[in-house]
């Protein structure tokens, strides 16, 4: 196969911008930790679950491509693999939280648990030891899957061995149950247990839907940037982009469906054990945040991606992806912060610092990895079909 692929390096501008964001975000959050530890720790949870979402969403995308035998996304897959590398950051972001869990999780305090019948009954699950074991095991699984996926994919660049595709397909099948379980319990551990009395069986699916969107949106931004600037192979057309838009659109609807199901069922049954979680998000200025969530996470991307041309237009896709990605951060903020700020939403330099840190982390890791390897999986047997793909 003679593909006109030549390895190009990202402009230093991007790398430098990434590092500047990273350093300034890091400094801001460190200062944040020293000025308001509790608030920073809550922000840290948002950051952590956000990065997990991006990484896991990307891994899910890769796994689905192998399992379904998709061809349109093959010219992009390496880019998605780069995005998935953000999963490597998770332990470093989790560390400051694990050191300050007492500020975040009610159930960490034995004296509180002693007084609270419900928490006492949950103690076999919600305790520091088991929590840390779960977090460690999950990270180990994610790292392992990431390394196996990328190792095989990179090896294929050299050997062009088709069997590696088969290996990764099998790996994807094994990965999917682990993906479902780990992402569910990540959502329960980091987000749901912030309000340890509250429970919702759909919560894992809710976080899953947002995570897929975050992974997709980040990948779409990176893919379109690289492809339009000519870092990937020639021959990629808007037909290849179309499905990125269609998937963003589909999962936006899926998120809305899950969010609506959760809300409607709790609202309708009106049981105090469940409703308080939504009531907290409806009191004071939180009401505006809740209403805003519907618009930013559903209404805007829905209408922005509804028509067929908009799913193909690279510019529109990038704008919508940024909105979707921001909406995921917003969604996490909406889930996490009401526990910290009961009277109304807070937004200040600490929050901004963590957002800058998130951007810095994603860009830095991406540009570091992207410069290291081929940006296209040139050994993939489906690559030619992917480039020739027509709707």
């Amino acid at each position, binding site marked *: 196969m003679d593909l006109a692929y030549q390895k190009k390096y990202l402009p230093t501008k991007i790398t430098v911008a990434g590092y500047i964001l990273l350093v300034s975000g890091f400094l801001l959050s460190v200062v944040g930790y020293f000025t308001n530890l509790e608030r920073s720790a809550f922000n840290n949870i948002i950051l952590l679950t956000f990065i997990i979402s991006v990484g896991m969403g990307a891994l899910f995308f890769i796994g689905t491509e192998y399992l379904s035998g998709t061809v349109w996304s093959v010219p992009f897959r390496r880019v998605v693999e780069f995005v998935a590398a953000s999963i490597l950051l998770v332990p470093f972001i989790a560390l400051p939280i694990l050191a300050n869990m007492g500020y975040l999780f009610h159930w960490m305090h034995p004296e509180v648990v002693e007084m609270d019948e419900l928490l006492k009954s949950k103690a076999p699950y919600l305790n520091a030891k088991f929590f840390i074991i779960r977090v460690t095991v999950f990270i180990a699984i994610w790292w392992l899957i990431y390394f196996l996926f990328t190792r095989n994919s990179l090896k294929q660049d050299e050997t062009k061995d*088709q069997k590696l595709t088969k290996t990764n397909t099998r790996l994807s099948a094994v990965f999917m149950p682990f993906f479902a379980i780990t992402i569910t319990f990540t959502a329960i551990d980091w987000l749901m247990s912030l309000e340890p009395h509250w429970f919702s069986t759909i919560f894992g699916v809710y976080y899953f839907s947002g995570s897929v969107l975050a992974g997709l949106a980040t990948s779409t931004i990176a893919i379109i940037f690289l492809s339009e600037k000519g870092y990937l192979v020639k021959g990629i057309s808007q037909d290849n982009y179309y499905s990125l838009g269609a998937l963003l659109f589909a999962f936006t*609807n899926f998120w809305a469906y899950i969010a609506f199901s959760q809300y409607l069922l709790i609202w309708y*049954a009106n049981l105090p054990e469940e409703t308080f979680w939504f009531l907290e998000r409806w009191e004071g200025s939180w009401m505006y945040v809740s209403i805003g969530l519907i618009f930013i996470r559903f209404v805007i991307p829905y209408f922005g991606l509804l028509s067929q041309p908009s799913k193909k237009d690279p510019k529109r896709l990038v704008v919508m992806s940024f909105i979707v990605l921001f909406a995921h951060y917003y969604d996490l903020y909406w889930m996490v912060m009401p526990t910290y700020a009961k009277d109304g939403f807070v937004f200040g330099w600490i929050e901004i610092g963590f957002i800058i840190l998130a951007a810095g982390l994603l860009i830095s890791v991406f540009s570091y990895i992207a410069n290291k390897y081929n940006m296209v999986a040139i050994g993939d*047997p489906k690559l030619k079909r992917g480039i020739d793909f027509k709707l």
Partner: protein
Amino acid sequence: MSSVEYTHEVSVIEGRPTLRSLDDLISKPLETRPDKKFYIALSITLSMLGLFVIGLIVTFYYGIGTWGNQIPVAWGFGIVNFVFWVGIGHAGTLISAILFLLRQKWRTGIARFAEGMTIFAVMTAGIFPLIHTGRPWLAGYLFPYPNQHSIWVNFTSPLLWDVFAVSTYFTVSLIFWYVGLIPDFATLREKTSNKIKKLVYSIFSLGWRFSNRHWQHYEMVYLILAGFATPLVLSVHTIVSFDFAVSILPGWHTTIFPPYFVAGAVFSGFAMVQNVLIFVRKIFNYEHIITIDTLERMNKIILLTGSMVGYAYSMEFFIAWYSGVQPEQFTFINRAFGPYAWAYWIMVSCNVLAPQLFWFKKIRRTIPVMFVIAVFVNIGMWFERFVIVVTSLSRDYLPSSWQYFTPSLVDFMILIGSFGFFFTWILLFTKALPVVSIAEVKAVVDGSQPSHKEH
């Protein structure tokens, strides 16, 4: 693995048949008289249908008291069968609409049949709420209309949403099915020499002349209808799940119900489609159209959706414990170890354990084994609804009224009869309409795609 080859697309139709031979093969059942086997099959399904009729006559003459329903189990087989049959219908829409949007070519061989099953399954399902209202001749009142007494239906009841959801679903499925049939009607119109048939096909083909312009319109309509049908697949079973989940009954009220019901519906629907297609491909010699690869893909979807259902069961169990709410915990322990434990474990082993065998390629490709697994899946999915409805109701908040539910003979007659109703339609369908889409299959045969100069 020997078959490692990703560089080119493998055709979903085996052996590169000529387009003419496809026309002939697919329209053959419509041009030949039914054979003895067909009449034997029809007499079996009609006998079952007879049971249905008897069951209904008994029900209407003596009343719902002839069923096993009691207090507190006021919802018995009626709603279980309703949910079961609506679920069976879901595979058709998933195959015809969602797989179409996902550009899965292997759907072409099975889409028509699955869509037909959707329609018949929804028809079967629709009977149960009608019976359950007790006075089916008053069903018209289910639709809200302005009237002199200003009497309105209860808009806040999910049972009413069901009326809207199911009737919309039925309408769109029917239109979708019919639109797909138009080019085939035209093909049949050209082929037949029988005058009456020609007239009928001419009317239904709406003047189709295979012109480029017709195809362009057709494809646009088909795409838009697929877009409409896709949210409907989700909405119908979502609303069916709301029937239970908006209540405060432990075991019914849980937020995962909507996606869990949808996954379960697709799961059982695929199992049913797979079961029936195994016969169809054999009897009509469609083995190269509905290939073993296609069946394998269906089995993969059964594995996927079965695992989703397993995830939902586990999540319900875990959160019931995690919630710390006593009635919730009791309900689930009661399900697994109480008087209905037998039903619960039938459900778990059929729905969660049996499909796990599809992890093995060999089993995915062995017809007798996959057939048995899919039968188990359907049994399991019926029991799933039974477990949800009966275990929760029979152990409600008031222990003094707890009762064990025992279905009556009439219940079983209606259950068996519903299968008779469904399969009678299926049998008639196989002799009245092309069960595989002629036009679509032709488009995916090797050699029908535009090819470039390298050939």
